[in-house]
């Protein structure tokens, strides 16, 4: 004998089992419920990814909105291609973030590297003493491609194939980009820890 709760649970499980490719087909035929399911699966990740670039929540929301509107409009074209929905969404969001920088904010992304690092204000000074702030600042100083590759693979858990597709490179090149990023991070963290310990020695 099944209870209503059992049936609802089973329904939810079945809904989760519908894969992204099937959802894209349904979205292409104008199915709003399928579109909502795509939103519930991927919106948070796309928002989080966009916020890493633009740092302003409202801008990240605009980028996410544009990304999903493009999915709604171009789902018919997308269903004919073998790319995964997730990497397609990330790629669109990534391109929009790049456009956002190039058009409105900075002449070059690498000139803007400092913008990703934490600003040293009295309020943030205390926070900067934590390891979290140090790693955040260190990631912010990486060149754009290294930072994006790290965000995609280490933060968002994308596969190497998906990440390589998004930043438009080969898997082999992606691996060397990631290795360089991790090596730079390790060096920066070591230097920051050394600086902090020498500051502590001077003041203490």
């Amino acid at each position, binding site marked *: 004998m099944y209870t209503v709760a059992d049936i609802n649970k089973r329904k939810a499980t079945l809904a989760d089992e519908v894969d992204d490719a099937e959802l894209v087909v349904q979205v292409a035929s104008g199915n709003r419920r399928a*579109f909502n399911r795509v939103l519930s699966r991927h919106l948070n990740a796309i928002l989080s990814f966009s916020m890493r670039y633009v740092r302003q929540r409202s801008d990240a929301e605009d980028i996410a909105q544009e990304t999903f509107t493009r999915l709604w*409009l171009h789902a018919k074209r997308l269903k004919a291609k073998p790319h995964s929905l997730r990497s397609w969404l990330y790629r669109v969001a990534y391109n929009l973030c790049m456009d956002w920088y190039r058009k409105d904010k900075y002449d070059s992304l690498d000139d803007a590297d400092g913008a990703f690092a934490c600003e040293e204000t009295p309020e943030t000074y205390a926070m900067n003493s934590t390891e979290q702030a140090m790693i955040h600042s260190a990631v912010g100083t990486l060149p754009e491609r290294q930072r994006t590759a790290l965000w995609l693979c280490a933060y968002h858990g994308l596969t190497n194939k998906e990440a390589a597709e998004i930043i438009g490179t080969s898997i082999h090149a992606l691996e060397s980009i990631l290795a360089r990023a991790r090596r730079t991070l390790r060096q920066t963290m070591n230097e920051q820890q050394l600086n902090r310990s020498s500051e502590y020695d001077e003041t203490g």
Partner: protein
Amino acid sequence: MKPADQERAEAILHAYGGNPDRWPANERTAVLERIKKSGQLLSLQHNARSLDNLIAKDAGETSMSAPETEVIAARINNSLPAQQDAMGALFTFFQQFMHRQPRFVQAGIGIAFLVLVMVIILPTNNRPTGHPTGQAAFEQWVWEDITGQSLTPNDYIAELTFMDLVDLEVDEG
């Protein structure tokens, strides 16, 4: 499975870190096998894990709460435009294509389109089709308006008898 070679295992640890879940799925078992046999790789994995732990502290920084995400999802839903049909999509594609081209290419495509219209499309309107042309339709309308008859001048003359023609000649004479 055959263990990965030392170089490849090192490359994977340097690129993807110490967590096997982050490694390429098709190489995971082979790399784990190699690490079991090498103290140097084990130490490399340990160091990579310590960096992974630091990175993980920054990874969750920008995620939003479920209610916040729902509000944004509702906003996206409410502002969705109508989906395009095939012609609309083709038109949008053409617009985007033209937008990406340099000015001289845009001008060239525009001129080619005009030539196409003049050479192929316009002459087809002047080909004899068996239907009345604009001029003939106008004459028909004038004829009907004056005489109140739907017959064309030619049809009318064809219906006249020999005696009617004699009468016409007499009247004109």
